[in-house]
Each structure stands twice: as C-alpha cells, then as structure tokens.
C-alpha cells in the first residue's frame, strides 16, 4: 500500500508540474501505437514517465489515441508545406443533427431522435460528435428502424402530408401512382443522401415502393411511399456523412472534399443540419471547389440566423449553464433563488455570447477586437430583464442602468464587481454544486475547459469537501490541501483560478464578505473575502475576479484551447499529433484576427483538416 501511494504521488506530480503546449497536448501520438494508453506522451508537460506504471499519465488519451499514432514515436515531424489533413473518420449524425436533419428534410419537428439510445459521453469531446465514439449498438440500429418507421408514417399520413413531398401526390390515381412515387423519390433522395442520385438508385427505390404496394390488398400508395422514406432514413447515405473526395493533382496522399460533400461539411458545422437548396446549388455550380469559395459560403452560413443555435449549442456544452434551471439552494440562506432565475441566468449568458459574437461592433477597453474570445471574457456589459435586474440589485450595474419588462436589455456592469463572461451570475451559480461555493470546482473548470490542461481527480483518494466548520472562508477551508506537496502539485494551478470567484456566491450574487457561523459559540462572522489569484503561465497576480479575467484574456493557452474545442467540434474527432499543421494554421489565423470568433470559424474552413481528407 505504501508503495502504491508513493506511485500515485509521483503520477500526480509529473502530471501537474509541467506546462502544456498551447492546445497541442491532447491525444498526441501514443508512442506505443497500441491504444493501450500505456505510454502516453501527451498531456501535461508531455510527461513520458508519468503514466507508464499505472496505465495513464496525464490521462489525456482517449481510446483512440493509439490508433492515431503513426509510429513516429518521439514527436511527429509534420511538414506544413504539404497538405496535412489528419484523420477523417466516417461520421454519423449525432442525435441533435439527426433531429435537425429530419426537420429540414421532411418538416417533421417532433425531435424523433430522442427515442434513440443514449449517446456516448466523452471526456475529450464535449459535443457528442466524436466519430471514434459512435460505434453502433444493436439497440441503435433497432431504433433507427422504429424511428424511421414513425417518421415515414407521419410523412405519408394524409394526402396533405404526401403533397408536401411532391405536388403530384395531391391527386393520385391508380394510373399515375407509380410515376408519382418516382417523382417523390427523385425529389427526396438527393436531399436525404446529400448527393446526386443516379437513375439506377431511383429505380431501386421505386422497386421497393412497388413490392410494398403489392404486398397486400390493404397496401396503399401512402404505405409504399412510406416504405421508400423509411428505407432512405436507414441508408448509410443518410445516417453517415459519406465522403469520397476528389483526387488532387500530383498528390496521391489526400483527396479534396468538394461539391455537395463540402456543402455537407459546411452545413453541419454551422447549422448542424443538412444543406439547404441554395447551398446545394452553390455546390453544384462549383463554388465550393476553391478555398475562397468555401470561405464565401461559410461566411453566408455564419451570417444566417440558423448558425446561432449552433454557437449556442457549442457554449452550452462548454459552459456549466445547462443545469441552471434545476439547481436547488438552501431556501433560508437564498430566499430569492428560484428555477426561473436559473433559466433567466442561462439566457443572460447565451445572449451576451450571441450579442458579442454577432452584433457588437464597439471596441471596449482593454482593446480587444469586438466578437473576440478575450472580449467575451472581459465584456463590461450584460443582458438582464426586470426580474434579473432586481434580483442582482442596482449596485451590480453601472450608475443609471435599468431594465424593464421581460425582454433582455443590454446594461453596463459595475466593473468594480463584475467583468466578462466568467463573472456573470449564471457562471457563478452553475459552477457551484451546493449552497456553498467550491473554489476548486470553479478553478478546475477554468484549468480543464478553458485552458485545456487536463488535470485529473487524484487517484487513490476519496476527495471530500472540507469540513464546513474548519474555517471562516472558503479560502481558509480549501487552503488546507495545498499544505501537502502532492496535493499542491495540482492545486497550485487550480486554486488561484478559483478563489477570485469567491466574490460570487452559490446563487450568483456579489458579496464582499463571507458569512460563517461558529457552531460551538453560535457566533456569526462576516469575514472580508480575499479574492486574490493568478493564471498559470501568465505573469502577475489578480486582486479579484475582475483582474483575473483580464489576465486570462491575455493567455495564449486560453485562446488556443478555445480554438481546439472548435476544431474537435468541426472535425468530429479528437486532435492528434498529425493535426499540428491544422492547429498551427487555425490558431495563427485566430490570433491574426484578434481572436475574433467568427474569424476563427471561417479559418477552420480553410484548414487542411476541413478542405481535405486522407486518400483511402
């Protein structure tokens, strides 16, 4: 047991003392190439020895790390002068994409994909779209069948419904039934398969129609059409994003993704659904065959309001805000908290993001580009309605600010108390899992999700919240574990990121003091909060969260981490050593654009990983 503990300590130390290369850590070539995670070169400080003994090091390896390895072992040599797309595994629609696609293909807004089995949750990919984690289960295939059956039944439920598939269906006779079925197939299949469909395949669909139509006297035109739809919705061409690519002159290693395949890539990146008619047209007109063309269409999709839910989806999965509606808090301590406040706070965060990314044109001090990630981290405004305004209280806002009615209104913050996304009420409440704040959890969120330093829970311990009576402030209570060298090896990074947010309590309210009652004497203390902290890798210290977020905004690690989340989302896979050039091009473009988020998304479409795929 003693030796095991020492080993654990060693892992923790080697895991935390190193610094992480900007966004380049994750999944980089497991040198063993076996996927066993045994020799994990990646993660924190590239600690080669860290995990060997116990099986994980930084613990960054996803199950796919090994298969990524090209056998180059000690650090890949990637030549960025030649096209280096990285992997491009076959992607299946996520449940979210499936719902959207059914909606846009057939006008069915019932979110039928909710009947599909639970998606695999992953440590690395926050968006449920990692192709390597989409292994189809028996239950999934069964549900694809039953969901397709019900969707098809709805699509063919009435003459009105059928007429939406093709006008011919509004008036079918025995004589023209089959030709109408053919017209429906001809119109639907290219959209369902997101590619041109040769006559031979239409013939197959019509043959299916014919056989089902002839199955029994009870069979009808509608049941035959439903059969075609049911079949299309289970076909690989619908469920998977099939890409064959086009040969690239003089380069046999890669294929260009163009035409409707590129339209599909763009559409699922920006809209999480199938391309619309205009995008298909652009694809067919060859407008997606050049890098510039891809960029132009990307810009169009991004400017379309249909991109807003995708951006919201991204942040909902990155930030601790989805659960706000359901948080319960001690009603004596926090009588003003309610589920509707939680809902409003989530909307507040979403609206700030939407406004800054899509609408803001005003540069504020410090001079970050409008719509940039550092600008979001330091926005001096928020959006509240009357309820939220009075919940927070006037002192939260700049003098003279007000909000009336139920609509969210832009108001300036009192920047001595709050500045930027991380200081918003929803972030403070959402990163707290009880009525007491936990600076370690808040710090861990920043270190893991915003800086991409993958710090694991310690192994071999049962981490417990400290005794609530062991100190007057959270800092006092939580500082104890830093006394141990092993604990401190990680907490030296986590805690200084968490303590500054102690000015925001478990329901997102600002506080200058922390109230604590001594259980022995029943004396109540209001102790001033020491909210000082710092950002690993950034020099200087912060007196409070307002200063801390300004330090965070200057951290290249924070910027490249943000970019790598988007890359995982866009590529639908984890990043590996072979993505060195992708990361370099995307992060460079991001930086050159002043870390503007829309520019980041456009830059993604210009990366080799998006424009090309490996030849098979």
């Amino acid at each position, binding site marked *: 047991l003693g030796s095991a503990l020492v080993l654990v300590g060693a892992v923790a130390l080697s895991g935390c003392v190193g610094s992480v290369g900007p966004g380049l850590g994750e999944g980089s070539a497991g040198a063993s190439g076996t996927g066993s995670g045994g020799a994990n070169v990646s993660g924190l400080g590239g600690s080669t020895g860290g995990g060997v003994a116990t099986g994980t090091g930084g613990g960054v390896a996803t199950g796919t790390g090994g298969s990524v390895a090209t056998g180059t072992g000690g650090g890949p040599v990637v030549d960025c002068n030649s096209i280096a797309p990285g992997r491009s595994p076959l992607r299946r629609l996520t449940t979210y994409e499936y719902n959207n696609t059914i909606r846009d293909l057939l006008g069915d807004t019932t979110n039928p994909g909710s009947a599909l089995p639970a998606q695999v949750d992953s440590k690395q990919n926050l968006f449920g779209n990692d192709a390597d984690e989409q292994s189809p289960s028996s239950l999934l295939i069964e549900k694809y069948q039953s969901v397709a059956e019900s969707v098809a039944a709805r699509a063919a439920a009435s003459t009105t419904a059928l007429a939406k598939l093709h006008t011919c269906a509004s008036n079918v006779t025995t004589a023209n039934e089959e030709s109408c079925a053919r017209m429906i197939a001809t119109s639907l299949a290219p959209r369902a398969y997101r590619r041109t469909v040769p006559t031979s395949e239409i013939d197959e669909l019509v043959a299916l129609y014919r056989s089902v139509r002839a199955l029994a006297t009870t069979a009808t035109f509608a049941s035959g059409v439903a059969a075609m739809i049911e079949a299309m919705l289970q076909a690989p061409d619908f469920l998977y994003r099939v890409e064959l690519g086009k040969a690239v002159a003089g380069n046999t290693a890669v294929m260009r993704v163009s035409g409707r395949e590129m339209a599909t890539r763009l559409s699922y990146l920006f809209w999480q659904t199938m391309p619309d008619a205009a995008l298909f047209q652009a694809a067919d007109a060859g407008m997606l065959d050049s890098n510039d063309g891809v960029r132009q269409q990307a810009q169009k999709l991004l400017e379309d309001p249909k991109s807003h839910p995708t951006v919201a989806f991204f942040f909902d999965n990155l930030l601790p805000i989805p659960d706000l509606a359901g948080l319960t808090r001690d009603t004596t301590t926090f009588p003003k908290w309610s589920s509707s406040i939680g809902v409003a706070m989530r909307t507040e965060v979403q609206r700030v993001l939407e406004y800054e990314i899509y609408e803001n044109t005003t540069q504020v001090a410090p001079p970050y580009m409008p719509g940039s990630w550092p600008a979001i981290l330091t926005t001096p405004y928020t959006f509240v309605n009357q309820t939220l305004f009075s919940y927070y209280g006037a002192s939260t806002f700049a003098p003279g600010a007000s909000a009336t009615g139920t609509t969210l209104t832009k108001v300036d913050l009192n920047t001595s108390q709050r500045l930027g996304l991380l200081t918003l009420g929803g972030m403070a409440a959402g990163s707290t899992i009880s009525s007491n704040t936990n600076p370690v959890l808040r710090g861990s969120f920043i270190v893991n999700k915003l800086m991409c330093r993958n710090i694991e829970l310690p192994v071999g311990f*049962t981490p417990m919240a400290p005794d609530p009576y062991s100190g007057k402030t959270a800092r006092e209570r939580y500082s104890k574990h830093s006394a141990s060298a092993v604990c401190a090896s990680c907490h030296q990074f986590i805690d200084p990121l968490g303590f500054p947010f102690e000015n925001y309590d478990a329901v997102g309210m600002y506080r200058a003091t922390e109230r604590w009652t001594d259980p022995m004497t029943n004396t109540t203390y209001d102790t001033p909060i020491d909210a000082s902290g710092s950002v690993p890798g950034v020099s200087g210290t912060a007196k409070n969260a307002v200063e801390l977020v300004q330090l965070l905004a200057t951290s290249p690690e924070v910027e490249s981490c943000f970019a790598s989340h988007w890359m995982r989302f866009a590529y639908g896979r984890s990043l590996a050593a072979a993505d060195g050039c992708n990361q370099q091009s995307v992060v460079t473009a991001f930086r050159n654009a002043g870390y503007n988020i829309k520019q980041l998304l456009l830059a993604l479409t210009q990366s080799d990983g998006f424009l090309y795929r490996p030849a098979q």
Partner: protein
Amino acid sequence: MTRYKLNRRTVIKGAGTIAIALPWLEVMGQGRRARAQTASVPLKRFVTVYQPGGGVRSGANGDKYTPTGSETSFTLSPILAPLQPLQSRIIVADGLNLTCGDQSKYSVEQHQGGSVGLLTGAIQQGSGNYPPAMSPSIDQVLANRLSTGKAYGSLQFAVRWATGKSHGKLSPMNSLFFSTSAPIPPRLDPQDIFNTLFGSMVGGGGGTDPNTIALMRKKSILDFVDKKYDALKLKLGTDDRARLDQHLTQLRDLENRVVITTAPPPTSVCKQPTKVDTTGYNPTSALNSADDGSIKDTATDAKIPLVGQFMMDMMVMALACDKTGVISLQWTDTEAKHTFPWLNLSEHHHFYQHDGGFRPTECTQIQTWYSQMHLYLLQKMQAVDMGGHSLLDESLVFFGSEIADPPSHAKNNMPLLLAGGDGKTVRTGRWINCGGVPHNKLLTSILNVYGDARTTFGDSRVDSAPLKTPGLA
C-alpha cells in the same frame, strides 16, 4: 477512514484462513461429486443484476451485510435477509476484491473503475475513460454461446439510469456491459420494451394477417437498406469500411430478428407479460439531472419499484420465450442520484453513501430493499416451468455492485451474490469466503461453468485463474 481500514483488514485476515479450504463452483464433468449425481440441468441463461453503492459491512450500526454461521449453515444479515426464502438457491460470495477497479492500485476513478471492471475484469484507463478496447464483459462473451439462433444476443434493461453527472448519457459512470468495441446502451423505456418484445405476439396468421404483412414489409425495407451498406462499403477505406461493417452486422441481426419473430406463437410458458401502467415515470429523466443530484424528479422516483418489477417481469418472459440467453437489469448507476420516496428517503443514494456523510442506516435500508427486488426476480424465475425444471434451474444470476464500502469506496470484500442453477452444476445454499482474491477469478469461473474453458479473463495484471477447490484440481 484509518479506523475502518483496520477493521476491514482484520475481517479479511480472519476470514482468509478458512477460505482456502472452502469449495467453490463445482463444474459438471470436472468434479467427482457432480459426476456421481444424476444428470443436472445445463445452464442455458445468464442474468446480471447491478445495484449501486456496495454493502454495509461497517459504520455506526456495525456489519449489516455479512452473514453469520458456517458455509452451509448460515444466517443472513439484515441486508440479505429478504432472500431467506431462497437461501438454498444462492451463494453469498465473500472475500472477493474488485482489484481491477481498485483506485489504490490502479489509476482508475473510484466509482467508474468499479462499474467498468465489474463484468469485464478490465482496468479503466483513467477517470472518464472506458475499459481498453477488446475487453468485453462476461455477459457478452456468454451471449456468443447462449444466444445462438435467438432474436437477441443479449438484452440490457435499466431503471432510473444515468443520473447526476452522467446527465442521461452513456458514460463510464453508468456502463457495465461492453462489446469488444463499445459500451452497450441499455433500454430505458418500459413501455417501449414491452412493445418491442411482446407487442405483436399473435403472429402465425398466414398471408393476410396484418402482423405478417407488417413483418414482410419491414423485411423488404431492411433488405433494401442492407444492400445500400454492402454497396457503399466497397467504396470506402479500411477504417470506414469497418465502421459500416459493424453497422451492417447489427442490421443483419435486426433482419434475423424479424424472421425469428414471425415464427413462434405464444406457448403455455411464453406469454405476454401483464402490461403495467407506468404513467408518471420518465425513462429519460436523467437528461435533466444536476451533477449533485439537486434536480429531483420525485414523480419518476416514486415509480421505480413499479417499473423495476415490470422490467423484471419482462426479463423473465424474454427468457421464457427464448428471445435471448443473456439479460441484465441495472438499477440506476454509480451516481445513484435519485430519491427513494417509497422508503421515505428524500435525499439521493450517493448522499447517504458519502456526499452527506456516511449514513449506514439509510444505506442499509436501500440495500435491503434491493434484496427484496432480487428475491422478486428469483421467485419469478423459479415459477416458470421450462419442462420439468424451472427457469431459475437453467440460469445463473449474478448480483453485483461497483464498490464494497460506501464511505471509502474500497473494493475489498465486494458484496457479490450468485443464484440459480439446479444445485448440482453450481452448489448453492452456501456462504463462501474466497479469502481476498481478485474477483476476476470469479469471472473466469463463471465462464468455465458454462463450458467456456478459458483460464484467464480480464486484465493480465490481475490474477484471474479460475477459483479452484482442492477436490476439483
């Protein structure tokens, strides 16, 4: 914590000396004793039941789990007491450590390492990860042997699943069953299970029967879809082709199921279970869960006993109807963040385990209730006559949890039970102590009992040689 460890060690040390002499599973054809007796009923089914949170062998109230007495003459403790009516049909298997999931030995998360290792014997590759690829769970290994020609290779049911931090998604916090490539998502909706498995049990009506026509229609469509996968495969590279192959394999299973379900009409044994009204139960309630369990769905929670029993009814009938040879039930997950209104417990299980400080009284109450549910399943299985013997006689039921001790999450001396068999193949009615050896040895032994002759199972770092008794060697 320190005090507890000493206690636990004392227990194991004390028990260790007797353990070695105790016989284990006696496999037909290997043991002299078995050969001498009349032919036994071959084991044809494997059932797994999981409940979270371990046993209660320590705490302010003392040991509420461990039986007292001797191997064959023992008194069940309060937690296991509900199983007393079928005491002769169970083995209380003490002295087994979930070594592969032991956070003090390997870099595994303390709950997740337990859940992903319980049936795989594999070591989790760090918190948040699944077991290494090619580490199937024993139920999946057995499915290849027991479910040939059946509609389903295996069926997984779960009640109030993916709570707390898993947010309704499949995660190492709630995954127990693994194919060689991926965790297996369970079926959650009792009504959907009913409709899928028993919804159209009339059949056999001939050419104009609506069900027959519906099945023929389904078959035509699946034939079409099958060809699309076959055609596309040829155009793709090796990796992607493998992905489509996996899909196609499952699709063909589904096609076979369509064919199989057309065949057998209900018999005297295989009947449609009584449909239970589960209104108010939201099978995907966990999609709205909070990390700390603070989002409560007491309406759904109140229905847990009803839904659980309905699911067990369907499990029994799925076996009796020979739809599969391998079936499992998962009571919630390692997070266990739901309330127990029927026990008047308004906090979640994890709260009583340690989030709110260890509460042995409440944990005992919860685990005792699980034993009542286990009894329900076993009695239902015993009541089905499979032709001179019961369904329980031809099945082995494995009951397990992901941890041993709630507050420490320790993995030593796991609360594991086996039930079923006809008493010859597996000698039940015993409380055995294996003396503190890895539970991987049990997994290998279970496979052996079914005729799978392998000598190791799970991670090679863990001793998995079958449990042997001196008489058998």
